[in-house]
């Protein structure tokens, strides 16, 4: 077990390094100096570049960048003076995190309930509609859903605020836009694993012992059916983060996703680099945690996964 954890952690570190290296070199390959505009004199340009350490050889810059990363410093914005990436993260990430966690929690509950409903319903019509519905909602890209919600409830019916102001009502649409895809995905996953667990011997045994229906459903089936869910938590969080890019920019939520899209559009390379590394790191760490949680809950995993 310890060996697996150490191995998995080492993998995480290597992946992180890979991400940083790729991001750094790709950003440095971008054409032109970040300060080059039409009306700038060569001497000012040189002074600015020296100020940001851009006059040094590129491999030296990489080492400096790595060192500052180790100190938790993700760099400064080149287009907005005095703004550091750390500031942007400190401002935006709590908002994004709150939104992501709320929608993920909702998706987890509703998805699980629908998944169980799919597997236990005796009516094939209901089952057919549920499966069709889940395919339908998996097929709708997040930004499409967000726009449709905005058009219908924000502009058409005018029941929900179009602009995000942090109030309860303004949370409804973004949370919905972020939660629908995971609901569909989780319900399919729960359906598959629940159906499998339903036919296991220990369920027959529990029924033979005369245990109640609810007790069997929750304690015997669901507990085992939830295992695959832990594995997908990592990728789901990654999805929530990329989903937040569009949802935040559509609903003008001051989160990290909107910041990312803005800096992409204004070509603010260092902010993009810093945010990429930060978000990539978050995703890598959640993947790591979900893998470790899986190995802890189900000891069978480390045997075939560690090989």
């Amino acid at each position, binding site marked *: 077990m310890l060996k697996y954890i150490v191995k998995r952690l080492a993998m995480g570190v290597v992946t992180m390094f890979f991400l940083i290296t790729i991001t750094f070199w790709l950003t440095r390959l971008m054409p032109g100096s970040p300060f080059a505009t039409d009306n700038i004199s060569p001497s000012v340009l040189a002074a600015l570049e020296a100020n940001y350490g851009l006059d040094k050889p590129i491999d030296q810059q990489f080492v400096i960048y790595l060192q500052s990363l180790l100190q938790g410093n993700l760099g400064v914005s080149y287009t907005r003076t005095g703004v550091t990436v750390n500031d942007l993260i400190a401002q935006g990430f709590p908002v994004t995190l709150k939104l992501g966690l709320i929608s993920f929690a909702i998706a987890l509950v509703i998805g699980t309930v629908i998944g169980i409903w799919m597997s236990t319903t005796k009516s094939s019509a209901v089952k057919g509609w549920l499966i069709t519905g889940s395919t339908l909602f998996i097929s709708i*890209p*997040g930004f499409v859903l967000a726009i449709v919600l905005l058009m219908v409830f924000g502009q058409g019916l005018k029941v929900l605020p179009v602009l995000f102001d942090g109030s309860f009502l303004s949370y409804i649409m973004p949370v919905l836009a972020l939660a629908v895809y995971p609901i569909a995905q989780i319900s399919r996953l729960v359906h598959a694993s629940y159906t499998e667990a339903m036919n296991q011997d220990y369920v027959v045994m529990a029924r033979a012992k005369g245990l109640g229906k609810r007790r069997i459903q929750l304690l015997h089936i669901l507990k085992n059916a939830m295992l695959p869910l832990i594995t997908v938590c990592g990728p789901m969080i990654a999805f929530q983060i990329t989903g937040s890019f569009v949802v935040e920019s559509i609903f003008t939520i001051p989160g990290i996703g909107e910041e990312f899209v803005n800096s992409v559009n204004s070509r603010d390379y260092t902010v993009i680099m810093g945010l990429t590394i930060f978000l990539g790191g978050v995703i890598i760490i959640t993947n790591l945690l979900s893998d470790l949680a899986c190995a802890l809950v189900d000891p069978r995993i480390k045997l075939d996964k560690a090989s």
Partner: protein
Amino acid sequence: MLQKSEFFKPIDKSEQDSEFIAMEPHSFWHDVWDRFRSNRRALIGLIVLLLIVLLAVLGPFFSPYPYDGMGTEVNRGPSGTHWFGTDALGRDLFTRVLYGIRISLFVGFVSTLINCVIGVLYGGVAGYVGGRTDAAMMRFVDVLYAVPSLLYIILLMMLFGANVGSIMVGMCVSGWVGIARLMRTQVISLKGREYVLAAYTEGAGPARILFKHMFSNAMSPILVQATLAIPQAIFQEAFLSFIGMGISAPQASLGTLAQDARMYMAIYPHQMICPIVMICIIIFALNFISEGLSEALDPTNSR
């Protein structure tokens, strides 16, 4: 006495044939098609997709407007002359949607095809060779898998410019990883089969064993994975275009069209609705097809 004919009756031949199997021998793909056809959702998906492909391929030839032809009729609503109306520059939206479908489908299918080829080669070699080579190759795959692809696709797009080519490059950097993992596990499990041994004793080279014998047996799960990857690629392209990182003007994918319409969303909602409905229909159809295909290829896996 015994030779008298009334004591003997000819045997009823029909009984001999009673165990004859009258069904025509079916090939594997014939069975798959039969099972696929009996799935209503999958069949509808296939028909819808074929119609859309037909429309996207042939439509522009019949359309009187070029996709980048601007006009004086700006921001018109849907009418007889402009089916989906016109955009802010007076371009015919129907024609632009048709071209958008072309680009979206092209990105989806071609990037998936490239990913499949790379993945099958990489995974096949890793699984077949095994040992340290396999371990080293799979470590690399693990690293690529863990890095969120969308982030460096965005960086690549900024580096190479916003066009179809750079989107493809971005998607192919890590898109093959899933297929490679699948192919590797398949090859490892097929390694010990008798027919592989038979091919080996007959003197077949590793390339022939791997790609003729093993690949044809590993194809079903890879095909299912590939049909899932197509809508994902279309999804990603639409997403990138929507956040302003996609195909640049005057060309437009469905995502770009949606992005363009965002500014005027409140005033001219039809400019937004047409492209996004089209994206949904395409992804919807592809998802149904992939669902049907996975059930048809592996009947034990029916949901």
